[in-house]
Every structure is written in C-alpha cells, then in structure tokens.
C-alpha cells in the first residue's frame, strides 16, 4: 500500500499546491493541537488534585471520638466517646493489614510557651513517631521524636516552623530549652506540614503530653495506613474498627456520629471517577474539533478530485485501475493529515511544556511568599504522556482515512469519457 512510487507521486502534488495543502492541514493541526492542550490540561488537573491528596494514594484511615446520637443499652445519647491507650492497643492487635499507626493527644487549649524573653500561646500535641510518615511531615532541622523518647517519656519537643519563627526568629532552636506551661522541654527538631495550622504547634511524645497535661491515658485520634488493599477491603476494615469500638464503648454500630472515621480511599475513588468524567468530556470536545478538521480535509479533497477530474480520467484511460485512484486520493489525505497532525502535536506539547515551566516558577514563588505554606495547587505538571500521543496518532490516521474516503470513492467513480469530454 505505502510504496515509494505513490508517496513520491503524492508529494509532487502536495508540493505543487502548497497553499491549498497548508489550508487543508491547518484545520487538522488545530484539532490535534486542541486535543493535546485539552488532554494535557486534564492531566494537569489530575496531577494537581493528586498532589493535594499527596501520599493518600496509600490508604489512610483516621478515627476520632464523637458524640453518640442513638441511645443504646440503657445509655443515653449525646455521650462523649473518648479514646485512650487501650483503644490504640485494641486496634493495633485486631486490625489486619496495618502498615503504620499512630495515636495523638491534642490539647484543646492554647498553652503559654516561653523562650527567654519571648512568649507565645501555642497548641500542643502528644504524638507517636509514625505521625511523620503518615502525615508526610517534613523535618527542616534536627531530628523527629523517636520510640525511645516515647518509652522514656522524654521532655523533648519538635516545633512547627511558624512556632519556631515566633520564638526564635532566624536563630536555630536545636538544643535550646523552652518552657511549655512552665515545664522545661529541649527542642530537638523543626518541622513543616502541608496543613498549615500544624506549623504553629509543638509536638512532644504522647506519654509526656498525657502526663504533663493531666490527660491520664487519653487519646484524641488514631490514624493508620493500610497496605495493598482494595476499596472494598478498606471498607470492611473500616467497619470492623467501628464494630470493635462500638463494643468497647457501648454504642450502636448504626450510630453515625459516635465515632468519626475518615477513609481516604473513598475520597480517592471519588476523585478518580471525577477525573475519568473530565477526561471523557475533554475527549468529546477534542474529537468534535477533529471532526471539524476531517470535514475540512474531506471538503477540500472533494474539490481536488473535481479539479483533477480530467487528470484522473487520463490516468484511467492510460491504465490506472479504480483501486490505484482510490489509493492516490486516500494516501494524499492520510499524508496531509499525519504531517499536519504531527505539527499540531508538537505545537501542543511545546505550549504545555512552556506553561509547565511558568507554573512551576510561580508555584515556587508563591510558596516562598506565602505565610502559610498552603501550597494548594489545582494545576500541576500538565503533560502529554506517550499514551495520549499514541492515541492522538491513531486518531490522526483514522481521520485521514475517513477524510479521504468519500473523495476517493468519488474519484474512483469518474468515467474517463466524461472526464475527457471537451468543455
């Protein structure tokens, strides 16, 4: 089909009709350009949202105590459900597939904190070392709280970068002693979290916080990551956590508010569905644009066939078979489509790359300027991956064939006598 002679033949025609070929190809180039821009933007949106879900690709389940809403086994409703170290133990021992788990105790009051003459009221949390992995906390200086600190109820603290600014300004706080509620703590590290309010907090070992703030063995919340599980399995685990807690705290398993369980996999699945819908939508728009391009090419090829009626008649008279005429027209359409489409593909990718460069620069600038390191991007790294490019290429070839089909059929039907009849 794609023999050299025909290709040469077609390139001669194309060369002889540069403007016409350009105009024809432009509509397709534009269509593919739009396809790439749209799909690239879709990808950018997806990447942006995923970035905000960061780390949540791994399934995280968080459990908070709540208020009962159903009276159960003689107990009235509106009862506070509070967790303690025993809840952590129950979950750790009974729930399978747990990768990492932490419990934390958030003191609900603002606590006065001193460093030399500096003073601030800050939030304090007692935590487990695995908060670092599960919450993706970045350590800016020093070290994080470790298991040894927990076991020995050490009076050490890591402080959020905003809290550090308040107390130490530009100075390094590592090794310094601060007074939290008049109790001395040694600072061992500075952290940063994507969730900005955390950056104003002071973290200390869970057991230490429980002792100092008279929490007994109270816990505010428990969070865990689960390994290699499907959304269904995750849901099952969620239910079994709830049922364990219900049994222990004596509330109805039907009670929606007794404990609050946030399962990231559901959010993730929801967003996946959204992306799929957006993608389908984008493809629809892009294909609409390409169809306009195909109609353009088809239209012009029809004119070409009309214009070349005589030539086609001559070719037939000297022995061209209908099949070879079809091939001639079809190949011309395909070649124009592919070349124009590749130009559109290249232009689209270039624009995306440039946009990407700009966006990265502005993101960095924003992050630097922002008091709160929100870092909320809804657009990140828009790109065309090979799959999209490949799909676009297939769309191109198909559209070329489609565009050439009617004109080629028309050409094959040209009767030499009609074509050669003198006007």
């Amino acid at each position, binding site marked *: 089909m794609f023999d050299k*002679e025909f290709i040469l033949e077609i390139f*001669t*025609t194309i060369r*002889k009709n540069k403007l016409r070929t350009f105009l024809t190809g432009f509509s397709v180039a534009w269509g593919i350009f739009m396809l790439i821009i749209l799909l690239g933007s879709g990808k950018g949106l997806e990447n942006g949202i995923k970035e905000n879900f960061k780390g949540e690709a791994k399934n995280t389940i968080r459990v908070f105590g709540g208020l009962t809403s159903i009276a159960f086994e003689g107990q009235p409703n509106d009862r506070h459900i509070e967790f303690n170290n025993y809840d952590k133990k129950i979950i750790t021992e009974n729930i399978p597939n747990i990768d990492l788990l932490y419990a934390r105790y958030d003191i609900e009051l603002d606590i006065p904190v001193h460093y030399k003459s500096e003073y601030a009221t800050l939030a304090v949390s007692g935590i487990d070392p695995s908060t670092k992995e599960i919450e993706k906390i970045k350590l800016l200086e020093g070290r994080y709280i470790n298991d040894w600190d927990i076991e020995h109820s050490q009076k050490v603290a890591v402080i959020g970068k905003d809290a550090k600014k308040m107390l130490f300004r530009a100075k390094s706080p590592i090794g310094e002693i601060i007074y939290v509620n008049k109790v001395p703590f040694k600072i061992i590290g500075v952290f940063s979290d994507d969730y900005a309010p955390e950056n104003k907090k002071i973290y200390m070992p869970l057991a230490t916080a429980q002792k100092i703030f008279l929490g007994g063995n109270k816990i505010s919340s428990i969070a865990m990551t689960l390994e290699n599980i499907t959304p269904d399995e995750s849901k099952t685990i969620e239910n079994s956590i709830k049922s364990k807690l219900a049994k222990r705290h004596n509330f109805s398993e039907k009670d929606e508010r007794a404990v609050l369980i946030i399962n990231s996999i559901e959010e993730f699945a929801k967003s996946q569905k959204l992306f799929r819908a957006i993608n389908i939508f984008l493809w629809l728009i892009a294909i609409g644009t390409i169809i306009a391009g195909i109609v353009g090419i088809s239209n012009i090829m029809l004119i070409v066939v009309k214009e070349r009626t*005589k*030539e086609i*008649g*001559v*070719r*037939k*008279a*000297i*022995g*061209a*078979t*209908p*099949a*070879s005429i079809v091939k001639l027209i079809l190949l011309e359409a395909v070649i124009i489509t592919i070349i124009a489409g590749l130009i559109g593909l290249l232009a689209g990718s270039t624009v995306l790359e440039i946009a990407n460069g700009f966006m990265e620069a502005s993101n960095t600038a924003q992050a630097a300027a922002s008091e709160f390191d929100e870092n909320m991007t809804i657009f990140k790294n828009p790109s065309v991956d090979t799959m999209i490019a490949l799909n676009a290429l297939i769309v191109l070839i198909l559209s070329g064939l489609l565009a050439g089909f009617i004109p080629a059929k028309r050409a094959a039907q040209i*009767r*030499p*006598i009609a074509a*050669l009849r*003198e006007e």
Partner: protein
Amino acid sequence: MLRLEDLHKYYHMGSHDLHVLKGIDLEITEGEFVSIMGSSGSGKSTMLNIVGLLDDYDSGAYYLDNKLIKKMNEKEAAIYRNNTLGFVFQSFNLISSKDALENVALPLFYRGMGRKNRNDKAMEYLELVGLADRAHHLPKELSGGQQQRVALARALVSDPKIVLADEPTGALDTNTSYEIMELISSINEKGKTIVVVTHEDDISKMTKKIIRLKDGLVDDIIIN
C-alpha cells in the same frame, strides 16, 4: 486486429432512448492507418469510446485482438487498455504537475514497472518524437505541437496494439498539424496500427483509409 459486428449503442436521455450507433460493421487489420470521419452527431466519438474500452455497447460484438470485449469491469478494462491501447487526445491531456518524461512514463508506472526501467523506456520514446532535450520540461513550458508529441510518446511507450487518436490536430495550427500527422504516419510506417478520428478533410487524406460515418452507420469507405 479490431472488428465491429452490427454494433448498437443507445444513450438513455430521460424518457426516450437516443440511438447513436445503429449497427456498425467494421474491420481494421494490423498495420492499417485509418481515419474516421463524420459530422458531429454521426457517432464517431461514441464509436471511439467503445473501441477504446471507455464505454460499453448495447448489442452486437466487438473483437479486439481476437478477444470479444463485453461487459468488462473497470479493473479489467483498465488493465486491457494499458496493455493494448494507446490514446492521443485533442487537448493533449498531459498531467500538468509532471514533466515530459514522467508523463510518458506514466502508463508504465501503472503497469508496475520500476522507476529506472520506465524512465529509460520513456526517454527512448521521447527521442522517437524528437523531444529528448525537453524531457524535464513541464507541459506548460512546451508548445502545443510539442505537448502533442509528448502525448504521442505516452501513447506509444506501452507498445500498444492500436493507437487511438481523437482529433489529434484539433487544437493545433495547420503547419503543426501536418508535422504531427507526418510523425504519426512515420510511426505507422514502422507497423503500428493507428486510428485517427477527425473532421478535417486534409488530415484524413494523410491516412491510408477513410471511414465515413453518417447517422450512426458506416456511410462510405475510401482507400487513399
């Protein structure tokens, strides 16, 4: 070489049929140089189209090279045309985007011959018509007479059994017309069967035999 027996052709014009060829009997043997004459409406173009496998006939019989030609499909007709017939048209009908050599080589392209071979062969025939030095000129860079010579070379390059020329001098001035006819005549001298359709008496007189058509029938045959 070519035999028509009681050939009829109708054109369907709306509700009534137009009877164009009303039973033509004709034989052209190998090596003949024949002109077909007739006023417009005499059926000469229709006959040429049928002889040239560009159109079908309704009844009778047409033998070309001893083969009965009847209801060929387009592909068969294309291949048969390529192998046995060469065409020369009134308005030359060279392909404007191709130079003289490529135009001459085109029938060989459709025969599936490789580029090198067909260009060599095309060059041979351009030499025959005296235009070897114009091989790489486009049609628009050639005079009418030169274009018709290229068309003649194209008709001959596939070594056809018969060359069919439809008003080959119709678009040329008198002097050039004579030159072309002399060239055609010299090709006939080498044994090629040639059929020329014309309405000009002086052109027909340069052939060896004149077949005069009138109202869809052979009216007269004159040997020059």
